[in-house]
């Protein structure tokens, strides 16, 4: 694909994202127009815009906008995490959810909630994600190599263990109403998103995301494996662990604000590679925008399809993600996954 065509895709996706975010804020039990959305945002940014009724303003500014922005940022974080993990582990099945990172982050986060130290929740989720990552890769490593199949199996084991630990902690310590809240969160949801969630997500995505974008060339070097990467001037171990650590940090932050949402990190990189090609300088920006787009749409579906009841968005991403994943397995190119 030419540079111009790629930029066309990127700009189109970015415009679509802005439109979809705007639309998503208008959708819900209370009718809000796009103009009112713009007016409310404008007023809060100190722009001279048409005044908006107070109730509408608080629906937009306090409820829907933080939620939509959190969904978009979490989509960016998960899609970038998946793309990086697939490259540095040379494993097309790598994804923060599948390799147990999300489950590990959940254990850390639930511990923080139960112990009543919610303010360290992001740090606890990060620690959980990092421990799960180290455990998965250590189990998968036999004789110095990690095969995709072993990594997935190890991730499965760690995810099961982390799931059991989480259930145990909840069973032991959670009371009354907190069950439903915790369940919502384990299945992945941005329903409770606030401006604090947005702040956490935007910080993680900006800091870690920039680091990942700057590493695009180094990620390319892993295409033919470790020896080839080393012969292209990459410090293989240092680079791999730095990038995986960054992914753990990103995943931990995402889990802290949204719980563990699956399939975004797994399928988005595969779908986007079909457009951008495998080079990370093109893949990463486009996968970030598309991840945001995907999760905002999924979350909007989650809160409207069974209105007035609301589904955790993780259920929607699974309902969409699994069929897409099956198509990916069935297509011709999956010979690469052997």
């Amino acid at each position, binding site marked *: 694909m030419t540079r111009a065509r790629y930029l066309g895709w990127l700009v189109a996706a970015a415009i679509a994202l802005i439109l979809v975010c705007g639309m998503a804020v208008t959708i819900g039990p209370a009718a809000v127009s796009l103009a009112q959305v713009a007016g409310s945002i404008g007023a809060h940014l100190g722009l001279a815009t048409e005044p908006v009724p107070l109730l509408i303003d608080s629906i937009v500014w306090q409820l829907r906008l933080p939620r939509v922005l959190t969904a978009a940022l979490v989509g960016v974080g998960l899609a970038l995490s998946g793309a990086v993990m697939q490259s540095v582990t040379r494993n097309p099945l790598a994804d923060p959810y599948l390799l147990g990172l999300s489950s590990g982050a959940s254990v850390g986060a639930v511990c923080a909630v139960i112990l009543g130290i919610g303010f360290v929740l992001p740090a606890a989720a990060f620690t959980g994600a990092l421990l799960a990552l180290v455990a998965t890769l250590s189990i998968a490593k036999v004789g110095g190599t990690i095969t995709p199949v072993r990594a997935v199996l190890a991730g499965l084991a760690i995810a099961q263990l982390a799931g059991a630990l989480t259930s145990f902690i909840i069973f032991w310590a959670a009371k009354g109403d907190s069950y439903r809240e915790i369940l919502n969160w384990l299945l992945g949801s941005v329903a409770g998103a606030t401006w604090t969630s947005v702040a956490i997500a935007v910080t993680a995505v900006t800091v870690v995301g920039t680091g990942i974008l*700057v590493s695009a*060339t180094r990620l390319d070097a*892993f295409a033919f494996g470790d*020896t080839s990467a080393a012969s292209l001037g990459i410090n293989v171990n240092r680079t791999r662990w730095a990038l995986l650590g960054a992914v753990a940090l990103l995943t931990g932050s995402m889990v802290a604000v949204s719980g563990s949402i699956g399939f975004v990190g797994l399928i988005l990189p595969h779908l986007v*590679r079909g457009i951008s090609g*495998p*080079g990370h300088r093109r893949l990463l920006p486009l996968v970030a925008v598309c991840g945001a787009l995907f999760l905002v749409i999924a979350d909007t579906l989650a809160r409207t399809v069974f209105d007035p009841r609301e589904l955790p968005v993780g259920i929607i991403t699974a309902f969409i993600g699994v069929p897409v994943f099956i198509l990916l397995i069935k297509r011709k190119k999956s010979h690469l996954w052997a």
Partner: protein
Amino acid sequence: MGVDLDRLSFAIDGAPILRDVSASLPTGTVTGLLGPNGAGKSTLLRLIAGIDTADAGSVTLDGVTIGSLSRRDAARRIALLEQNAAPSVELTVLEVVLLGRIPHRTKLMGSFSGHEDHAVAFDALAAVGAGALVDRSWHTLSGGQQQRVQIARAMAQQPSLLLLDEPTNHLDVSAQLSLLGQVRDLGVTAIMALHDLNLASAYCDHILLLDGGMLVASGTPAEVLTPEVIGNVYGVECFILKHPRGGHPVIVYSAAS
């Protein structure tokens, strides 16, 4: 000038893989690295490339000690083609060759630059006669074409030393001959691990023969490839003929009796 190996030794978990390997290879020469399976050929190539660090001894390229260089600086001087490498994603030929430009990009902003690298990539493909393949998908190429593209990738690194680990593996006869001819025509100092003694004899200026991690013979093909040496190292009987055109030794094995 050229490559100097000075008493290189390397062990893995206490088991010696290479012991006291020393050699001096002038600039522009093609050296064949021979020896039975497990002799230490691939390990020696990794040490020369600076990917693994020798327990003792040093590698010097044009007066610069490789061990003192950063990984990136080493990659600007030395390119290594490993055996049977395959990518984990769908790549086009151009994308593969452009990988060779990675060590030449700046560290921080390298991800946002390098569009001038295309010219280098096209030159490298032309140099190995693979210019027509530029838009093909890697997975649709024949084994010989893949190796050519890998060599183009290595040449895009603009190295002063090219290392090849069994480049003719799995290639048919005509692909083997044309590939090695291509390596010679590049004019770059090259060291290649080979299994086929006759190919080494035909295409190399110099032979290093390893056995059990030791350098047992070093010299021109005619000096190294004698019935005695081959018998000692490989345990096979053979006759040495003279190639009717090139004059280099041709090894004819006598069938085991």
